């Protein structure tokens, strides 16, 4: 009798604990369900239909996906996006790392870090607008300067050859500060004594950087690469403000193509199918990155 009684009370207590636990995660859980899981499932559902927002959606199976494979515009947008990532990520990461290491080793002033992070405090739209004016072929400050130094005026955002690079440069300008700050925080976790020990052994700055700093920064590097890569694949606002996918589709990235299909051509099913493909691609890329960088292991614990 006693035993059965204590079992009942234990089960009751456990149920109470589970309930408390659920209450704690409820806000995050509700957010995840309503804003992430539900839209994702809905997008998968819509991607299997033909739907123009006027008539009721019509189930078409995998027709949208098969159409995707032969859609030259889709492949072009995928290529343009890839080029953007290729311009953006290496430079942004290397520059951020350089700034972080320099400010860590040379000048650890708060004011300097404030200047470095400043561009990140501006929204993408404002940054794009500012640079749109600065890079204007006729009235822009940059072209005025280039003419003075004798290089001559450039098309920048108005040139099909330079538009994508220009957009990448704007993004790099805006995000490098954040990357630098993340690396800087990571550098603070590396004990100073390691550098002193290395200096006594005769290590120079470069040796210390690639033998000590870089390996110990790996978890931060993984975080920076994963988040900035996902962000780059989803570039939209700078393009929407600065180029609107042009000139001659040279900056029509995947997200811009999805937007066009959904809200200009009213092809919700097709737009959803592209979204799902992008979603799956990003998951695969992220998993691969985490695996390659052993993101879950830190030597500093």
């Amino acid at each position, binding site marked *: 009798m006693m035993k059965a009684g204590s079992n009942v009370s234990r089960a009751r207590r456990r149920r109470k604990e589970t309930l408390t636990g659920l209450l704690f995660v409820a806000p995050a859980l509700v957010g995840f369900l309503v804003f992430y899981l539900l839209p994702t499932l809905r997008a998968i559902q819509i991607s299997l239909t033909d739907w123009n927002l006027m008539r009721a959606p019509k189930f078409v199976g995998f027709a949208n996906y098969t159409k995707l494979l032969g859609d030259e515009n889709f492949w072009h947008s995928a290529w343009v996006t890839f080029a953007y990532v290729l311009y953006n990520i290496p430079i942004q990461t290397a520059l951020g790392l350089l700034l972080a290491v320099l400010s860590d080793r040379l000048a650890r002033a708060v004011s300097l870090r404030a200047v470095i992070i400043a561009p990140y405090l501006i929204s993408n739209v404002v940054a794009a607008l500012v640079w749109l004016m600065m890079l204007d072929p006729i009235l822009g400050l940059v072209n005025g300067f280039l003419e003075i130094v004798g290089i001559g005026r450039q098309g920048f955002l108005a040139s099909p050859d330079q538009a994508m690079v220009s957009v990448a440069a704007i993004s790099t300008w805006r995000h490098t500060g954040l990357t630098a700050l993340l690396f800087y925080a990571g550098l603070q976790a590396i004990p100073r004594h390691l550098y002193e020990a290395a*200096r006594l*052994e005769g290590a120079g700055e470069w040796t210390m950087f690639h033998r000590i700093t870089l390996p110990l920064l790996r978890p931060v590097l993984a975080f920076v690469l994963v988040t900035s890569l996902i962000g780059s694949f989803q570039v939209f606002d700078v393009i929407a403000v600065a180029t609107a996918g042009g000139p001659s589709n040279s900056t029509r990235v995947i997200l811009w193509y999805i937007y066009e299909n959904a809200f200009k051509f009213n092809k919700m099913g097709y737009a959803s199918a592209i979204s799902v493909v992008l979603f799956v691609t990003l998951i695969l890329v992220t998993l691969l990155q985490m695996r390659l960088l052993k993101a879950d292991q830190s030597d500093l614990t």
Partner: protein
Amino acid sequence: MSFLTIDNVIKQFGNLQVVKGVSIEAEKGEFIVFVGPSGCGKSTLLRMIAGLEETSEGTISIDGEDLTHADPADRHVAMVFQSYALFPHMSVYDNIAFGMQINKVPKAEIKARVLEAARILQIEALLERKPRQLSGGQRQRVAIGRAIVRKPKIFLFDEPLSNLDAELRTQMRVEIAKLHQEIGATMIYVTHDQVEAMTLADRIVVLRGGLVEQVGSPAELYDRPANLFVAGFIGSPRMTFLPGRIEAAGDAEIRVSSSAFARPQTIPGPFAHLPDVNSTVTLGLRPESFRIDATDPVLTATVEITEHLGGSTIVHARTSDGNSLVMATSGRAELCPGDALPLACIGAPHVFDAQGLSLAATRR
């Protein structure tokens, strides 16, 4: 010129002077310990020798070469840090080999030297492990191994045992002493633990407030402390201090009275300087310089606490004039709190003048 000569060095951090003019000489193969309370400048001094801190004034030379402003790498010193400073992402082997790898020493020689160091320190079985897979004592050995393979002119130890538990600390202390015997290298060792200083050092440098209080062998510091600070800092349990007054002073002997004493005591010379008659002094007595004497006691104290260590007993007592007194006695004293403790002195007490300077020491 000595092997290591530190001449009147000063370390200034902004307006703060941490090392205020220190001169120390060390011979080749000597084991020197810097000891002092925290903030005395001992670690800063060590880091100045290593070149990790810039020397503001004065000179440091090693083996006849002025290295005051030389790069740390050019000083041929190796340092063992309190935190060990092992590279967490490298194996024990790579940690020890690091310096040789970056200096492009041939692979075969690296291997031979790492294995030799590993043999001396008995860490051969750990070479493939990462530092986080090692215990505190093992990490300490790896850190020492990294120093050994460099064949440095001087080994610098910055409180290397502070992060270890008491038992391991004692064990590693013995091993560092053995290591010094085995390789005969010059070692400078920083600690705040006077027991480490006493057991390891050939010579101890006692520092306080950025200045040298006294330099000498452990026995010298124990038997002839130059001032009250050294007298109180060296020796465990601490020296007992009692107030005194000079009754008569001559070159051959002086007579001091104390409110704790039943009668004045005679202290034989020679003295480096003599105090004025009637001036107040401080009398210092080591724990083992008391013995229980019920027939003709010099002073009587009241027992407060007894600590039985098995082979010996430490008695904490209070004198009739209210000063605390510590006595150590071999064997087991059957004393209870409140018991009267009639004591006589073995040998003469140390006498310190009003400035805290021992009468046996020359005035600064």
